């Protein structure tokens, strides 16, 4: 019994997306820290960064909790599908 290796490719794409999102999130955090450390922090600017972070976190949750979950399920069942066909 062997799984459909294309499922690993799909999961790899999601992993790449997660790595990019992590990077963007860290970028927003650095900007927030930098702004706060300045003598005169710009609140609207900080709120924009926070708002962006909120979206990035939501996207991470969706990819991790929903998309990866489904992909793992597809991978899990692809092995038994091949087995039953034999």
């Amino acid at each position, binding site marked *: 019994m*062997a*799984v459909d290796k294309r499922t690993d490719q799909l*999961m790899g794409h999601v*992993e790449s997306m997660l790595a990019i999102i992590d990077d963007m999130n860290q970028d927003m955090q650095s900007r927030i820290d930098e702004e706060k450390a300045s003598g005169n922090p710009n609140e609207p600017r900080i709120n924009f960064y926070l708002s962006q972070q909120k979206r990035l976190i939501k996207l991470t949750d969706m990819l991790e909790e929903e998309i990866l979950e489904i992909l*793992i399920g597809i*991978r899990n069942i692809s*092995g038994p599908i091949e087995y039953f066909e034999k």
Partner: protein
Amino acid sequence: MIHDMEVLEKEGPAYERRKQRFQSWYESVFKWHPNFMYTPNQVINWTEIKKSMSEWKVGLVSSSGAHLRSQKPFDIVSDEGDWSYREIPVETDPKDIMISDSHYDHSDADLDVNCMFPIVTLKELVKDGVIGSIPSKFYGFMGFVPVPQDLITQTAPEVAQKLADEKVDVVILTPGCAVCHQTLGIIQNIIEGVGITTIMTTLKPELTEQVHVPRAAYLKYPYGYSAGPANDLNMQKTIVKDVLELIPVIKEPGSIVKMPYRWHGHIE
């Protein structure tokens, strides 16, 4: 060592999503396995360990379908499943272990059984001084046991007693397929009930939490890798060590901790 332990919440949106996934699985499982009986543990047994990790004698029970090539394979045809077990001496060469189970893909485990049945990992952890020792035998079940009555009354208590006779302190348990998660949760609770501290790795936390087990570590991996990725002993050691290190810090029965590893695919 895991510093930021993420314990799965027992209420809230994430819990509800898992509960929905369990419901959806529960409604569909009868299409494939009409005999399946949902059999959660009625009471969660709990044994705390006082010794430090470097003194533990650590046993292994897996429902991956692992057995010696020389032993009778598990019955993978019966709709009733197979609740028997196989004793695997710890000095066994991993190449002499095979897997009989048709409910998940174990092609990687056929090449590196350690990703499901971490016999080499545990020996390495003894050598590194992380744990104290291992008993003379590990145990293999085939987790497809849709009707677990004889497992509950006969074979799981037998294995629990054998582990107790060898004065095992801690048992790590690794599952194979979906129904396996119920089977292994039942075995785990029976072993905990004889005074041995246990932890299972779970690939399906939504099932494990509905079976009510003492402790579990959630690996977000596909079936076939419940003890780490294949052909990567360092990662396998890290995972098993991290899972064992959770034992003294989990204080609440029924807790499932999410491990911080991501699946990076099949490794050649």
